[in-house]
């Protein structure tokens, strides 16, 4: 070994790491990682909201299945959820599903279960008096929820949603397992091709994930401070 670490391999493949073969071929690398994370995040915010509301429903037959579903998903490794999607989706839809779609489904299902806990905690954090006041002005239960409780609760949920987005960015690395060429997959690909620089490649990839995730973690802390200062003033 002439040199200790040689980062030339990163410079040589930099665009491939960042966007894959994008302008001429499909999006890959970091671009695909962010695409998967953003799409799954938006979908699972809705999923989490719905599951969260169902899980605090007054009706037993609504609350019960949703709580069981949430706990079952939370008890499973994400890898297992992705494998299930890999088998179930084609069987249910009766046609093949692109791998990236499979991963988005898996991530959405998995993250929705976690987001529902945030939604639930956010709603339970709003004093009961709010709901009671809303009901006594003549609003129905669902109206009180949507117009009075949720808007206040959502504000408290924002920092946790950002944290969940950070987890989601990290979780997209599992797309590797079904062959979606996001950042981690691109890293292993280049590692297999060049053979001699695994240390450099994985340090670089870890650093890229770190920069993005740390930025969002800091944002979430900032929001937490800002929002709590605002509400106490």
């Amino acid at each position, binding site marked *: 070994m002439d040199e200790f670490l040689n980062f030339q391999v990163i410079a040589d493949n930099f665009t491939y790491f960042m966007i894959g073969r994008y302008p001429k071929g499909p999006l890959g690398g970091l671009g695909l990682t962010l695409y998967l994370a953003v799409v799954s995040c938006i979908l699972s915010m809705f999923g989490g909201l719905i599951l969260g509301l169902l899980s605090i429903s007054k009706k037993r037959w609504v609350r019960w299945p949703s709580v069981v579903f949430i706990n079952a998903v939370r008890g499973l490794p994400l890898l297992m959820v992705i*494998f299930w999607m890999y088998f179930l989706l084609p069987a249910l839809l009766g046609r093949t599903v692109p791998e990236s779609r499979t991963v988005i489904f898996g991530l959405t299902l998995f993250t929705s279960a976690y987001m529902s806990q945030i939604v639930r905690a956010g709603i339970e954090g709003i004093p009961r008096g709010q709901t009671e006041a809303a009901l006594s002005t003549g609003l129905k239960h669902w109206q009180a929820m949507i117009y009075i409780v949720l808007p206040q609760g959502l504000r408290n949920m924002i920092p946790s949603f950002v944290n969940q987005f950070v987890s989601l960015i990290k979780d997209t690395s599992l797309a590797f397992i079904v062959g979606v060429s996001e950042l981690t997959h691109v890293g292993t690909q280049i590692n297999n091709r060049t053979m001699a620089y695994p240390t450099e490649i994985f340090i670089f990839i870890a650093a890229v994930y770190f920069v993005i995730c740390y930025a969002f973690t800091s944002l979430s802390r900032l929001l937490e401070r800002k929002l709590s200062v605002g509400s106490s003033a």
Partner: protein
Amino acid sequence: MDQGLSYFSTFVLVFICFQEAFVLKYHFDWSIVTSGKYFDWLVSGLKITLELSSVSIVLAFLLGLLIAVMRMSHIKPIRFIASAYLEFFRNTPLLVQIFFWYFGSYKILPTAVNDWLNSTNFEFAAAVIALTIYTSAFIAEDIRSGILSIPKEQMEAARSAGFSFLRSMQYIILPQAVRITVPPLVNQFLNLAKNSSLAMTIGVMELTYQARQVESYTFKGFEAFTAATLVYLVISVSITWAVHVYDRRVLNPQKAG
């Protein structure tokens, strides 16, 4: 825990519906995962999953304790190292860390360590290292909030009684903090059991790996993955239940009545 008990009845129900829905297209054969060679594969996978999680949780606890104490140190560089460690390992994917230790660590480790690692089961060792370091960063935060929940006066009293910082931690603060930290720690064990599934990517033959293996030998993916799913659910339900009991019996006995 009616929730925990009802868990399975619902799951079984869903699962029967599911079987009915596919019965025309797909021939189910549960015997392959309930006995014989493939059953043994899954059992050996479960054993490795538990082994991996148990070894890693012990090491991660010790490392996490060290980092948490470093984080509260009065010496600035030590504090900085501890937070840098926490931030870095919490904000990178576990899979990348596993790949780093498995494929890339040989260039930065001393030759003696490399030789020793290669003489052991290296896949398993790399998975233990990655899982330990990743989990220790989360455990350190749990321990830190446990320590912060102990009134400051305890530390001041210990210091004025003549204990050094480390001795006050050891004899006064940590014994109280660890008691509060038990539930989050047990939850970390659950996370570890789930995260250990990623070790399959480097060829550790744990539960998910074996489920996949059974699938590729028999083309019975539904059966294999259902079996593995049930095992993961049993682990998670029993751990959640244990935390619940601990909370009721030890931390908040007044709630139990």
